[in-house]
């Protein structure tokens, strides 16, 4: 126990106002210098446990705490949280809300200032940590204008400014793209090389292969099982899936994505074809099989097509991008990929008429469309779906702007509710629903307005395997009803399993043929 940085003996915790305990009888010991992954399905208790380790539970998130917990030799349930600050660095899930200062240098200095270090020492540490985390070039910049990956990098650096012994990360990659995740891995490796103890609560597992020493699988608030890394990595994909975990090996998914991408390039506008020579992982075989058996809903006439489109915006941070000519057919599930900052959001805003194209035209149902027409025909399910729910109940939400006394509207509402498995919660407040249910309410409102193009922005960020698959199935159902689906995503498992075509904006932009 002396060499354990984290030691839990029979720890249980129930959040205030919750009926069921979030953690039960946790026995865990993390020796100094180990990198441990806390994994499991949503609501399994891994995030709660990470909060126990850094003292947020029970000091900020209140409730009933029982058992004995030691973090770096202190008892976080009774020591004030600020005594843990110099020992435990924390990186949280949302890059947008975990920084406190507008300026990178200020943010890095912030923990050191709070510890009352002298100015010269603060400056020395800021320079040293910026050097270590490769962000010297960002010092002095405004954090608001940085990419998600850069923000998360700054969060990592800020967590290290006080030279902690332990770093706790809570789903640090849920908003990151592939390149940023690869960067994250290098940072974790570097921290490990310095002898830091690392605890990561995470859904995405593949990026941690070879870095993590141990995997702790949570289930329903208990530790289901602990694995040493080499033992865990030899588990079959089926076994990992059965535990509700995301894939350990993304290789087959990436090959599938590359295949879908080359198909979209080669045969823009014609129906997707599958190359039988490529071998897919067993998990993928199933979904591919499903795809083939879906009857040909894909209509030959495109709903939307672009011609010589140039997107972008002007102003201080303005940018412009040429978009290769695209066609979106009813029944398609198109994945829009490419790293942060390559213009995915701007393209989506342009396709839904929220932003004007700088040049070129968009055709809707064979007619040149104005931004206004596009806003009427398209719908965007935002990553943060809370912004788009306005009513007191799910049923009312679906009927906004429609005549509530009209029997056909009522009938349609009921069928949409039924279709999206929302009948049970029809009279509940949308904000009281789970993330997935909220997503479905937003989609329902789009169906009620007769939207033909439904765009989803990162619908599976921070979701476990089960919920990711649920989203995939929903997309397929919508496509089968003849809607055109566009998914903006970094999630390779979703893209490979459920998309019928993939457009990679990043590749298009450096490909000379695309920028013509």
């Amino acid at each position, binding site marked *: 126990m002396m060499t354990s940085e984290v030691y839990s003996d029979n720890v249980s915790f129930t959040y205030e106002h919750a009926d069921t305990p979030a953690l039960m009888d946790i026995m865990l010991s993390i020796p100094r210098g180990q990198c441990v992954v806390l994994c499991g399905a949503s609501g399994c208790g891994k995030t709660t446990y990470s909060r126990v380790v850094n003292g947020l539970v029970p000091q*900020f998130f209140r409730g009933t705490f029982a058992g004995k917990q030691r973090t770096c030799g202190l008892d976080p349930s009774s020591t*004030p949280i*600020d005594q843990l*600050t*110099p020992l435990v*660095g924390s990186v*949280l899930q949302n890059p947008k*809300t*975990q*920084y*406190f*200062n507008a*300026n990178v*240098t200020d943010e890095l*200095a*912030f*923990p*050191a*200032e*709070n*510890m*009352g270090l002298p100015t010269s020492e603060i*400056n020395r540490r800021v320079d040293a940590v910026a050097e270590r985390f490769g962000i*010297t*070039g*960002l010092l*002095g*910049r*405004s954090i608001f*204008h940085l*990419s998600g*990956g*850069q923000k998360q*990098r700054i969060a990592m650096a*800020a967590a290290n400014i006080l030279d902690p012994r332990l770093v706790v990360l809570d789903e640090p990659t849920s908003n990151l793209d592939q*390149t940023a995740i*690869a960067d994250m891995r290098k940072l974790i490796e570097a921290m490990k090389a310095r002898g830091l103890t690392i605890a990561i609560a995470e859904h995405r597992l*593949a990026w941690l*292969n*070879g870095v993590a020493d141990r995997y702790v699988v949570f289930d329903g608030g208990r530790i289901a099982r602990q694995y040493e890394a080499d033992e865990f990595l*030899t588990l079959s994909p089926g076994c990992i899936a059965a535990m509700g975990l995301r894939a350990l*090996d993304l290789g087959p998914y*990436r090959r599938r994505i*590359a295949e879908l*991408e080359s198909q979209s390039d080669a045969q823009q506008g014609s129906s997707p074809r599958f190359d039988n020579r490529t071998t897919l992982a067993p998990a993928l075989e199933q979904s591919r099989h499903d795809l083939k058996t879906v009857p040909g809903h894909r209509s030959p006439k495109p709903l939307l097509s672009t011609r010589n489109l140039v997107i972008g915006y002007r102003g201080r941070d303005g*940018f412009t991008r040429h978009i290769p000519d695209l066609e979106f057919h009813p029944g398609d599930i198109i994945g829009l990929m490419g790293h*942060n*900052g390559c213009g995915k959001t701007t393209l989506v805003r342009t396709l839904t008429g*929220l932003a004007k194209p700088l040049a070129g035209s968009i055709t809707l149902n064979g007619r040149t469309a104005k931004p206004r027409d596009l*806003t*009427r025909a398209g719908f*965007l399910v935002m990553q*943060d779906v*809370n*912004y788009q729910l306005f009513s007191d109940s799910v049923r009312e939400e679906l009927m*906004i*702007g429609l005549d509530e006394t009209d029997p056909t509207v009522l009938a349609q509402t009921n069928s949409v509710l039924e279709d999206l498995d929302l009948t049970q919660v029809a009279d509940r407040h949308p904000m009281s629903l789970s993330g997935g249910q909220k997503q479905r309410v937003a989609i329902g409102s789009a169906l009620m307005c007769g939207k033909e193009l439904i765009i989803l922005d990162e619908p599976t960020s921070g979701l476990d395997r089960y919920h990711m698959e649920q989203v995939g199935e929903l997309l397929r159902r919508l496509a089968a009803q003849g809607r055109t689906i566009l998914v903006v995503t970094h999630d390779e498992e979703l893209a490979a399993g459920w998309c019928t075509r993939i457009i990679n904006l990043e*590749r298009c932009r*450096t*490909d000379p043929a695309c920028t013509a």
Partner: protein
Amino acid sequence: MQSSFPAKSVTSDSRTSFQPPAAATAPGAPVFSDGAGGFSSDRTADTARLDRADRVSRTLDPRTKLFLLLAANLMLFFHVALATQIIMAILFLIPLAVAGRWRLTVNFAVLYAVFTALGLLDPEALGLPWLHVVSALAVGTTMMLPCFMTGAYAFTTTSASAFICSMRRMRVPEAVVIPCVVVIRFFPTIAEDYRQIRNAMALRGIASGGWGLVRHPAQSLEYILIPLLMNATTVAQDLSVAALTKGLGREGEHTSRTPIRMRAVDWLAMVAVMIPLGLDIAGVIR
């Protein structure tokens, strides 16, 4: 059966499918370096600009900013004469311009000029009695504007840590300091949230278009406020967690990297705004 370190193959795989060959990189496109250095730091070099690092030296001390805000409120309270109002408004705009906030300065100046002019209209002389409503509203707005000017100056040109430090120097209790800092950090997120909500409304066809908000003001307000407040609660929680884990609540002395001290120009600014205000209250300006 997997190898024990499949990550290696994954990384090389990703490179072939996602990272373009260097030769194909167009000039001006961001550079992807996969080495150990600042891999992602140059990714959005074209979008993120160097913030004026020397801004601190070109703005007043946070305590002076708060004093200006107080002076603007006193003006409202004492109902000062028009001449005083105009002098004060100009005085308030000077530091904003010096801090390099040109657009904000010009916007405020134009708004102020327009509303002052509207307030000077004489509806009787023009024979348009309904203008009374307009000029009454304009007078009210003109009186509020100095508060917005000084508020905008205080909040857009001060870093959170400078604020914390100066409030602590003024011996403000922690129970006031921490909520204030969270609120300051909160403002930029509200603007962003508002844009998102307006987009969501446009997609639903709710109060869209330039006049949409005006046509159904009560309903629109509800549609904007509900998501805004719902989101605010989660953001406030996230921010509190971030602040706590970084030791904002620690008892004992905190330091600040940003040098904070009252300079001659700070005293000058305070005296400058107090002169017209004092003269007005004393009854010299009418």
